[in-house]
């Protein structure tokens, strides 16, 4: 049995805010195998970014608190690591590309200065590099993401670059080290469609070249279909379904997944769907039991009381819904 | 059935808004402290003649048998070198300070706001240049120094002080409003108002001014404290209200001569001054926080 690269077990996370606590993550179970590409789909503010940020524990300066659960990276519990170990992980093994490239770049430092900072203090920390070597590496990184005229970009400030260029710079920063896992949080969402496409191809090539694991969050279901092998669907702070990517688009089982996939407008023009009635739950007072039950067409009494665990349909496909309890019992036994 | 207008007003959205803002305001204990302090000070100032025990202390009163008494039951703040009750004088001094702040703001704020609006709206033209250059001249030196200079040259009384501070103060308001107007000017709602055919006056006062209001109100509250400080600094050196009028600055100045033995003569007005400024600062901060929209 291979050890999974990432194994999040029953993660609960809350934010302390003015009016109380936002119970954002409510028992997240998430697994990524080495060299696997996993997608993560969900509505806005369902907890996707928070889950991923908690993998590398960069929620430090906000008011987030992890109340329960484990995050295992290569078998080691990230939540129990000390600062030095976690920094090692961030430097050498996991990297993240953020959603908004403009926000992810420090506006008062030049691109070159930020790149060299990363090389100096992070990737190349123990290596004692000279200034020339640092500069060479920075230029190489920019060339890797197909940015023209890297020397000029090194001295520019983020405000002088276009959105697409900023996103490429962020990708360059993420790929500076030889990582095992790349987390991409909606790359290209804040850019327009043609740039989006270029970024997608770029990512695809780089990922295939390096053969690393990827966690890809996206609203663009086409991107998910192209890159990922397995996909999770997330709703209101927990995973509701996971399956092979192809399977989840053809045969979604969870009521939410069904509505979600159905809501995608199809080229064959079968009409625009109605969308999903209701709204996402209030995290201050989330509904008890399954968080989807107020909007679910097949709601049963048990849904209002107990949160369904992940039930196995087959080797890869799992659903968190009480509808499938009987089936599991029939199949399992 | 027509509901009475009062009940209608209570149920209207505006009242809800007021209630919500009050809730937000009251969550911050510092703002509540500020509000209470300011209310007490205002109350004391307005009703001073009715609540003070020794109203003669403000006039030309001399009673050497009671002079230089330390704080006791009949004289909670002690007496000064002429035998006047310090507590009464302090409360009357609040009146002077508040009067000064009120007059200065009454003159300076409308003047500064209007000039700032005009200069900002006509940005780039000669109107703008003239107004802002004059503002720059007044802003080149800290207000206290210019106020000291002006007050020292002209006859020394309260009126001069108030006028002097007013002449300086409008420039700060003008500069602030100018900044807001120039940043708001480029926004689309101004252009659409112009397209509809709104006149300049309408745009200035109905579109642009509401955007400045929150900052103006905050500034006014904080300014009361600042003006009282400058006023006290001026009267400390003898340039403000003249004796026998009670003013916090002059009381402190007189008290310093009797340090350290009759310490109460300087210390109590000093603490009172700090409390007044603190109250208005806390209130101003609370009001400022009200207008800030919290990001998620």
């Amino acid at each position, binding site marked *: 049995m291979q050890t999974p690269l990432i194994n999040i077990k029953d993660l609960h996370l809350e934010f302390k805010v003015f009016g109380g606590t936002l119970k954002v993550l409510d028992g997240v179970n998430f697994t990524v195998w080495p060299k696997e590409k996993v997608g993560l789909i969900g509505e806005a503010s369902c907890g996707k970014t928070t889950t991923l*940020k908690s993998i*590398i524990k*960069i*929620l430090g*300066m*906000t008011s987030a608190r992890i109340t329960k659960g484990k995050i295992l990276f290569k078998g080691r519990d990230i939540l129990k690591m000390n*600062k030095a170990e976690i*920094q090692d992980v*961030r*430097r*050498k093994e996991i*990297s*993240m590309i*953020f959603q*908004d490239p403009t*926000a*992810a770049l*420090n*506006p*008062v*430092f030049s691109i070159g200065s930020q790149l060299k*900072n990363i090389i100096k*203090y*992070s*990737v190349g920390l123990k290596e004692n590099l000279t200034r020339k070597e640092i500069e060479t590496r920075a230029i190489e990184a920019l060339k890797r993401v197909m940015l023209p005229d890297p020397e000029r970009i090194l001295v520019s400030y983020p*405000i002088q670059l276009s959105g697409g260029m900023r996103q490429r710079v962020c990708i360059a*920063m993420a790929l*500076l080290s030889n990582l095992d896992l790349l987390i991409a949080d909606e790359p290209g969402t804040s850019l327009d469609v043609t740039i989006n496409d270029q970024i997608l191809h770029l990512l695809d090539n780089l990922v295939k070249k390096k053969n690393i694991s990827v966690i890809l969050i996206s609203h663009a279901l086409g991107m998910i279909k192209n890159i990922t092998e397995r996909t999770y669907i997330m709703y209101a702070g927990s995973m509701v379904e996971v399956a092979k990517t192809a399977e989840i688009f053809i045969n979604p089982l969870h009521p939410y997944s069904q509505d979600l996939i159905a809501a995608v407008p199809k080229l064959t023009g079968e009409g625009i769907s109605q969308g999903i009635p209701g709204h996402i739950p209030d995290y201050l007072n989330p509904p008890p039991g399954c968080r989807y039950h107020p909007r679910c067409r097949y709601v049963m009494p048990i849904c209002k009381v107990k949160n369904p665990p992940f039930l196995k349909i087959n080797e890869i496909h799992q659903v968190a819904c009480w509808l499938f309890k009987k089936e599991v019992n029939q199949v399992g036994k | 059935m027509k509901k009475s207008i009062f009940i209608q007003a209570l149920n209207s959205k505006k009242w809800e808004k007021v209630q919500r803002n009050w809730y937000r305001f009251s969550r911050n204990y510092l703002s509540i402290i500020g509000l209470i302090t300011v209310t007490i000070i205002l109350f004391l100032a307005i009703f001073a003649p009715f609540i003070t025990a020794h109203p003669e202390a403000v006039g030309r009163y001399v009673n050497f048998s009671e002079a230089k008494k330390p704080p006791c039951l009949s004289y909670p703040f002690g007496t000064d070198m002429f035998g006047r009750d310090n507590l009464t004088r302090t409360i009357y001094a609040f009146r002077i300070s508040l009067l000064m702040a009120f007059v200065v703001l009454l003159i300076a704020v409308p003047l500064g706001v209007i000039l700032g609006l005009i200069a900002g709206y006509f940005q780039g033209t000669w109107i703008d240049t003239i107004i802002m250059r*004059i503002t*720059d*001249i007044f802003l*080149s*030196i*800290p207000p*206290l*120094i*210019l106020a*000291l*200079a*002006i007050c*020292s*040259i*002209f006859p020394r009384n309260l009126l001069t002080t108030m006028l002097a501070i007013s002449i300086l103060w409008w420039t700060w308001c003008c500069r602030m409003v100018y900044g807001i107007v120039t940043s708001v000017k480029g926004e689309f709602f101004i252009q659409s108002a112009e397209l509809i055919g709104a006149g300049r006056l309408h745009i200035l006062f109905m579109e642009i001014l509401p955007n400045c209001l929150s900052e103006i109100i905050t500034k006014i509250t904080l300014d009361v404290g600042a003006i009282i*400080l400058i006023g006290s600094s001026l009267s*400390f*050196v*003898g340039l403000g209200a003249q004796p026998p009028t009670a003013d916090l600055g002059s009381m*402190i100045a007189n*008290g*310093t001569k009797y*340090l*350290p033995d009759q310490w109460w003569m*300087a210390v109590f007005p*000093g603490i009172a001054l*700090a*409390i007044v*400024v*603190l109250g208005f*600062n*806390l209130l101003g901060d609370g009001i400022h926080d009200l207008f800030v929209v919290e990001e998620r």
Partner: protein
Amino acid sequence: MIKRKSVMTSFLSMVKLKMKDRRIIFIVKRLFHSVFVLWGLSVLIFVMSRIAPGDPARMVLGTRAPEEVVERLRIAMHYNEPIYTQYFYWFKSVLRGNFGVSLVTQHPVLEDISQVFPATFELAIYAFIFMTIIGITLGILSARYNNTWIDHLGRLLSYFGIVTPSFVFAIMGMLIFCYLLNVLPAMGRLSPGIIYPPKITGLITIDALIQGNFKVFIDALKHLILPTVSLGLLGMAEEARITRASVYNNMKKEYIAAAESYGIPEKVIMFRDLLKPSLIAVISVLGLEFGALIANSFLVELIFNWPGFARYGMNAMLQKDLNAISGIVLVLGVVFVFCNIIVDLIVDFLDPRIHLVKERNE
């Protein structure tokens, strides 16, 4: 004006310094602006001094002087001529450095000013360093440990510093430390009986150190403590507040999380990525803070009997010494204009967005 600018720009374009020549144009523009402001200030001061009640000629000569002598002085001072002519003569002499003679000291005003300037300069430098370093440090600590007791204590202290007027603090300080506890001296720069060190810089502490004279150095420091803290308290409190707010806001920004995700050590993030954007807010107000510091020194120097520029100015104002007042105001004007230009340059250096955004809009 235009000729000078285009000559400069063409020279600079030959040298091909893109970024720097914008900065130089910026400095030149600011210099012109400052010259105008100073000129305007001189007009203001002049008009004020001429509107002031009282007969200047008689004030110089005294009440006992006979009328013809006063009349002759009036003619010599151009008092009977139209006001713009008077201004012209006055301005000409001001440009030569001649502010007239002080009524109080009977010496040329500029000479007086240059004598008293070092004392205030020393006090101002110490107060400025105190206020900036401690203020910013407190602000950073408050933000880093926000909502803990450190933060609450810091915020309380800064409120206290903002609302207590400097002269009240000076008096309280004198009361407690000089009279009650008797650990610090009350007046002046040096204790009576101690000789001033030979004047190299004019700053007693530096001069004493250069001489190796530690006794004088310590004594001067003791005399400096109370005035420095009285002057610097307001600025320190303001800066602590602004720094705290700025750091606290920037701490939550995405680029800090991004820097963390790349594995950069926390200390590097704090002192590099977080500090630079946060300092911008503080440094922008440094000019105003310094102005308030000098303004407050007018009162504090009076209280501590500090033989400085501000005490001289204060005395001049109280005694209606018009020449000295004009001199003081104009000299201060020059000082502040200079400070504001430096502050603007530093802010521009720290935050390149300012002139880059202009570049895009032009």
